[in-house]
């Protein structure tokens, strides 16, 4: 009977069936983004201009890259509050090595990202081996890494004098800003890892049930270490883009960025309970936050309204996601 129904659809309305299937796979949050963009284009004149769109892309790059890492952590049932300060760490390492050791910019960038990945491995090891709540460990690591950054910068900022490094965020390739390609690279990496390797399966398995995953013979500790290393590495990459955009390493740059990333993930429909998490949802979540902020600024609203609206958006995002989930399960 089930087969017959499917056959009927494929025979009679092949195209509409496919379209409906495709539409049902689009995260609901995408439509919110579309409505938001259309609405802002109508209300704010400067919104739909080429320069503003490029501006938006560059602004959303750091949040998207970091959000992807945060999504993987949250899907595994954890949380990483230290990502904001890790993001600052990579820029700091780059600035420090270029300024004091006169290091090649590419080498400095790789070193910056590697330092972040190592940092994430330490976090992951403490969480996995010590069996402590990720919230506690990463909160501690937030303070520790912020201190390390402050120590390296000696409480101030270090300017980055390197034209090649500046191009990472400020250059254009084939008519598009470079951060687009960095974001796409991060997106590709996370998509491949989550969809095409056992790593992705294990992340969801660990997030659904830590003990269950252990019973299945998954080396949970090892994968947790890898998960936190991946998220820290992506945060480091985001930090590179940010440092390149600002041409300085500034200790306050990443302050609170982890909360923006959590907001992006949560608005994208990922449950903080773990075991689920969508890549595209996170990307749209990051875009919504960036577009919303940009739009509110263009509308002439102040910092206070933007803060309050972000708070409301986070809550509404989760309500929407939960509502969709409940509707879906009732439908079946």
């Amino acid at each position, binding site marked *: 009977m089930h087969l017959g129904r499917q056959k009927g659809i494929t025979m009679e309305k092949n195209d509409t069936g496919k379209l409906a299937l495709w539409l049902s796979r689009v995260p609901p949050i995408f439509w919110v983004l579309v409505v938001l963009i259309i609405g802002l284009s109508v209300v704010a004149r400067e919104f739909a201009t080429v320069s503003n769109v490029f501006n938006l892309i560059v602004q959303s790059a750091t949040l998207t890259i970091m959000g992807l890492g945060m999504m993987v952590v949250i899907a595994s049932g954890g*949380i990483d509050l230290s990502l904001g300060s890790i993001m600052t760490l990579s820029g700091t390492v780059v600035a420090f090595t270029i300024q004091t050791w006169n290091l090649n910019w590419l080498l400095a960038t790789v070193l910056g990202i590697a330092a972040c990945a190592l940092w994430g491995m330490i976090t992951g090891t*403490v969480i996995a081996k*010590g*069996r*402590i*709540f990720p*919230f*506690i*460990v990463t*909160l*501690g*690591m*937030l*303070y*520790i890494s*912020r*201190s*390390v950054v*402050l*120590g390296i910068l*000696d*409480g101030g900022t270090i300017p980055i004098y390197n034209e090649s490094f500046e191009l990472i965020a400020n250059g254009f390739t084939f008519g598009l800003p470079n951060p687009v390609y960095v974001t796409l690279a991060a997106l590709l990496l996370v998509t491949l890892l989550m969809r095409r390797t056992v790593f992705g399966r294990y992340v969801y398995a660990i997030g659904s049930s830590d003990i269950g995953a252990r019973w299945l013979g998954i080396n949970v500790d090892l994968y947790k270490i890898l998960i936190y290393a991946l998220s820290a590495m992506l945060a480091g990459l985001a930090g590179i883009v940010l440092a390149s955009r600002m041409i300085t390493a500034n200790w306050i740059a990443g302050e609170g960025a982890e*909360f923006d990333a*959590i*907001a992006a993930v*949560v608005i994208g429909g990922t449950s*903080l*309970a773990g075991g689920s998490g969508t890549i595209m949802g996170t990307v749209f979540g990051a875009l919504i936050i960036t577009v919303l902020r940009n739009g509110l600024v263009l509308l002439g609203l*102040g*910092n*206070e*309204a*933007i*803060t*309050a*609206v*972000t*708070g*409301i958006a*986070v*809550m509404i995002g*989760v*309500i929407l996601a*939960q509502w969709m989930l409940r509707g879906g399960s009732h439908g079946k």
Partner: protein
Amino acid sequence: MVSNDSLSQRRVSVDLWGFLGRVSRLLVLIVMGAAVTALSPQFLTAGNLLNILRQASLIFVLAAGQTVVILAGGIDLSMDSVASLSGVIVANMLEADAPVPIAMAVGLAIGVGLGLFNGVIVTRVRLPPFVTTFGTWLLFKGITMWYNKYRVIHGFPESFRFFGKGRVGAVPVIILVAGAVLIIFYVLLRYTTFGRKVYATGANPEASRVSGLHINRILIATYAISGLMAAVAIQLYIGRLGSSLSDQGQFFAMDAIWASLLGGVSFVGGIGAIDQVVIGAIMIILLRNALNLLGVPPLWHGFFTGFVVIVAVLGERFLAARGERG
């Protein structure tokens, strides 16, 4: 005969680990105190000890509210913004020459109201506590900035500042307030049905619900208590400083969470005791004091704070595991 011997031996070792687990926090505090005393002879003076207790009092008042929420299985990240919003409203009322008791009462009521708002969203809309209080943290912060802008208010009446900076004899009033909070929370959590319900809800919400507890009401009450304590703390804080501005109390939620953690309150819910949280609050201040005495630059304070908390929680896990295994 032999088995009996080994059994009794085992029991002794169980008791040893269990005992260590119970008094470990106090031991660590004493060791920390001894270390700071060795660093600086001025440490062990009555004046300095009172000073440390005074600083720890503010953190304890906050941690008491946070502890009740964590015990019931939640978390309250919005304490900073609840405190700053209720604080700026009190400050604005005082500036407009409102009677001090009324301004203070309104401030406390606002704290309770914002806490209730958190609680209603957690229970009725069923948002996870982390998301809810993160969202309201931003929301209340925005409202505070919109309401107060960048204004700095000072010149509060002395009767208002009495609670924050006054003294009864040699003892700062804030210590007496913290003492009262300790007694009230100790009795509330240990000797009232509400306290038992909070523990039960945190330990197993589903079982509590099935047993006929109105867990929604209990959860809402815990957030209201947390909001109230944030409001109490900000009045003590601006009373001591003598001025109020929009971004006051930014460290409130974090300090409260640190103190609860160091006090052995488990994030699982249902595990922890308020008298231990006192030790947690004092530990934070002792640590800062020690770092200052050692001449560690403020830049590196966060490093040691984070490190100590992680090591403390690791140590606790170790002791707990030993106790269970025995």
